[in-house]
């Protein structure tokens, strides 16, 4: 039992339950609509409404920008339901500093779009369709994430 508390100091069931729910969401979206529900594409496809360059006006963005925004809206809705129904609406915050969130986010957005996928796109959908390029992408971002979390993220305030 001490091994379990060492590996999962904050419990383990809610991680597994949450992961299974996320899997069910991706599976159900595929079963009902045939869509592959990664999350990072919405950050490019939504710009296509404002930025009329050939890159953003690619069919893969303009054809999917509507449903991707609805999907993102659903993401907020589901999280709001958890907040109200499960958490009781307690105030949420993070100790991670604003500049870290902003700079980290900038690299996350740029990298995910250059690499065509994030933790859900390559991680869940890519691995879920057993594609080896996604496995390589996951291993790559895991290694660099371990490195930056244990260097930059620790050294800087």
């Amino acid at each position, binding site marked *: 039992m001490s091994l379990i508390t060492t590996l999962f100091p904050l419990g383990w069931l809610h991680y597994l339950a949450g992961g299974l729910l996320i899997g069910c969401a991706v599976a159900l979206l595929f079963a009902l609509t045939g869509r592959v529900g990664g999350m990072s594409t919405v950050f490019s496809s939504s710009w296509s409404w404002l930025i009329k360059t050939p890159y953003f006006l690619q069919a893969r963005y303009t054809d999917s920008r509507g449903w991707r925004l609805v999907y993102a809206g659903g993401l907020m809705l589901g999280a709001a339901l958890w907040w109200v129904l499960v958490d009781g609406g307690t105030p*949420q915050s993070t100790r991670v500093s604003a500049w870290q969130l902003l700079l980290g986010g900038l690299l*996350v957005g740029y990298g995910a779009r250059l690499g065509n996928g994030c933790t859900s796109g390559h991680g869940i959908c890519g691995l879920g369709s057993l594609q080896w390029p996604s496995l390589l*992408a996951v291993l790559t971002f895991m290694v660099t994430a371990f490195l930056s979390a244990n260097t930059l993220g620790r050294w800087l305030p």
Partner: protein
Amino acid sequence: MSAHTNGFQQVLATLVCGALFGFGLALSTMIQPEVVLQFLRFENYGLMLVMGGAVLVTVVAYKGLPRLTTTPLLGGQFQQHASQWNRDTAIGAAIFGLGWGLCGVCPGPAIAALGAGNWDLVYALVGIAVGALLQGVTTRG
């Protein structure tokens, strides 16, 4: 032509699936950057259960459903998003990881956190949106 069949039902289904995803992210505390950073610092392996559980269900659906039926329940067709291993994927994934390790936030949680009242993560959301913009304007279409 199938794109417009069952239009309203497709919108509703997409919203509900998004909500299920967001509920799962919130329940598994992935919208708390601290928990993600604990994983990346080898202090809490919960994220492995989240990814493992999600991938397990997804494999079954992606591999199994097209054998059971030729079309999705609300029309259209089963899409395939082929990943490629090339220079952009390698460099992009490496940069993504650097940022993820720095802030503990990835695209899904950045969106979901706003619904769950963790408004500090709006900084990450803005960063991701600007990062995606920079990637798009510096790439030739």
